[in-house]
């Protein structure tokens, strides 16, 4: 299945020459008239992207206002960079920034390589049946939303679950792993690995299946055992994909799972679970500090966009292709 997929992908971008010769010769106006159906098709989508994706961009101007819902957008006074200076002297914001960076770092260190290791391990299985069985198990958690995932984790690791009674019988007392701020960083990382490790293997499987079988044969003839074939053939074969994904991942360091952290903040406290997104939510929607919260969001958004674009540029320069 994956082999077919890769072949599929290789031809994906080729432009279809449909109808272009006759269309070119006609004038623009008559082309527009003739293609009126095509414009009709995209009207609902264009309306959506304008209203729900582009209009809110201008809403970010609230970051430069002392916004009050009673005055509305126009009547609220401009305050320049006041919200940003407030933001950077706010200890809670600095905690959120620190937590975001820490959680991101942990995910890059552990959640990023996990699918590579799993893909290599599964790839070394000879039985196709066993491989497929494991795949269908490990892909599953990706499709559950964070509410379901946290509910399940709480059931197993929470105060009344089997983990607590196991720890208790080992003499650790009745410990609730889900409410411990000291181990929260590890917990959050483990949750991400559990939920996404299987899903993450898909792209590596595709890359592995694109490696020509002859290379394995040649390596085997030269006396390389299966571990050395993995080390000298498989890993170099997918290193491009690894580098590309790593660079792109670096571009999203400021985005850590909003839902995942919001859901657990009551249990572990904001000292450990406050990140940029939850800060914005609590200060703005709950606390009514609209200007400050928007400034936090804009700060995150601008840095995020700059990072993604530069990450892509770096990916292109390293010869890994880039996404756009």
């Amino acid at each position, binding site marked *: 299945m994956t082999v077919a997929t890769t072949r599929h992908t290789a*031809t994906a971008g080729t432009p279809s020459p449909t109808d272009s010769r006759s269309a070119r010769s006609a004038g623009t106006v008559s082309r527009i008239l003739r293609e009126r159906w095509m414009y009709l098709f995209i009207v609902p989508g264009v309306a959506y992207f304008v209203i729900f994706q582009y209009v809110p961009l201008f809403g970010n101007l609230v970051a430069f206002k002392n916004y009050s819902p009673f005055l509305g957008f126009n009547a609220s006074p401009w305050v320049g960079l006041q919200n940003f200076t407030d933001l950077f002297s706010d200890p809670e914001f600095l905690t959120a920034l620190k937590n975001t960076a820490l959680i991101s770092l942990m995910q890059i260190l552990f959640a990023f390589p996990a699918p590579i290791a799993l893909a290599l391990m599964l790839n070394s299985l000879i039985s196709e049946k066993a491989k497929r069985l494991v795949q269908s198990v490990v892909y599953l958690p990706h499709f559950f939303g964070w509410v379901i995932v946290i509910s399940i984790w709480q059931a197993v690791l929470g105060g009344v679950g089997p983990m607590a009674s196991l720890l208790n019988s080992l003499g650790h007392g009745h410990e609730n792993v889900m409410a411990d701020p000291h181990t929260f960083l590890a917990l959050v990382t483990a949750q991400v690995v559990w939920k996404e490790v299987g899903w993450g293997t898909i792209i590596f499987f595709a890359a592995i299946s694109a490696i020509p079988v002859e290379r394995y*044969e040649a390596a085997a003839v030269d006396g390389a055992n299966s571990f050395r074939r993995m080390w000298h053939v498989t890993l170099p074969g997918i290193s491009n994909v690894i580098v590309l994904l790593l660079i792109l991942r670096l571009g999203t360091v400021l985005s850590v799972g909003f839902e995942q952290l919001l859901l657990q903040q009551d249990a572990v406290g904001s000292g450990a679970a406050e990140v940029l997104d939850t800060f914005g939510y609590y200060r703005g929607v709950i606390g009514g500090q609209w200007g400050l919260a928007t400034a936090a969001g804009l700060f995150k958004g601008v840095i995020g966009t700059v990072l993604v674009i530069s990450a892509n540029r770096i990916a292109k320069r390293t010869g890994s292709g880039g996404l756009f």
Partner: protein
Amino acid sequence: MSAIGRPPWQNRPTWPVQTLKGIVIAGIVFVMLYPFVYVVATSFSGDTTSVSGNGLLPTHYSFAAYKAIFSGNVVLRSLMISIGVTLVGTALSMIITIGMAYGLSRTRDVPGTRFVLYAVLATMLFTSGIIPNYLLMKSLGLLNSYWSLILPGVANAFNMVVLRNFFMEIPADLFDSARIDGASEWQILTRIVLPLSKAVLAVVALFYAVGYWNDFFNALLYLNDSTKWPIQLVLNQYVIHGQNLDQAGAPASGQLRVAAQSIQMAVVVVATVPILVVYPFLQRYFTKGVLTGAIKG
């Protein structure tokens, strides 16, 4: 390559290696599946006061927890809301995404559509932030409306690209002969393109549906009225935050004596089942759909 089993150049692995692999794989499968098994088992554990005991799984089984949650209206109502939002949302998402994917599939012929395509792709690079979205929904008067669960994510650029790539791979001859026969673009879309794309349409629809079903963020942000809550918000309130469902006037469990944890796990199971039902269909196709979109934008 390995449908025929082990290729001749590959040695049979030695038994220690095989055993080690077996243990690692068994461990992974256990860690992935045990939580689900535990949740399901607990939901059926019924009327005991200490549900989990010291073992891995409970010992007594009954349907009491399910009777309790379905005798009240909180869970049932939220399920209906989630189902409704998922169905309406997915239908709307598909109409918009298909229209856009096809309408933008011939950027060389249709003036202006290349610009639209880039404008749509650009939305993958930025996020507009929580507060601006909230203020937008507020000024549109959609707070506390079910539309606030559907409209903010009704289309996404990634799914549009997946469909568009697929549409563009349909052989051009099919379109040309239909046009010579005088077919309109509407006829070409509905009689040729869509029937040829059933598999990828199914995958994209399922991805949208799973997204609507799992959505927690929009509901939390935009719905104040707890009688409009979808199942994920009910889960958050009664399972993660442990509020007692009894107090919400939900199950009449006065004489049932169902353990709170058992009821909570029953709610988790009910929220999970729809995904488990569509999962086999999803799994059959998703690698293809994911990759065509992910590699080439």
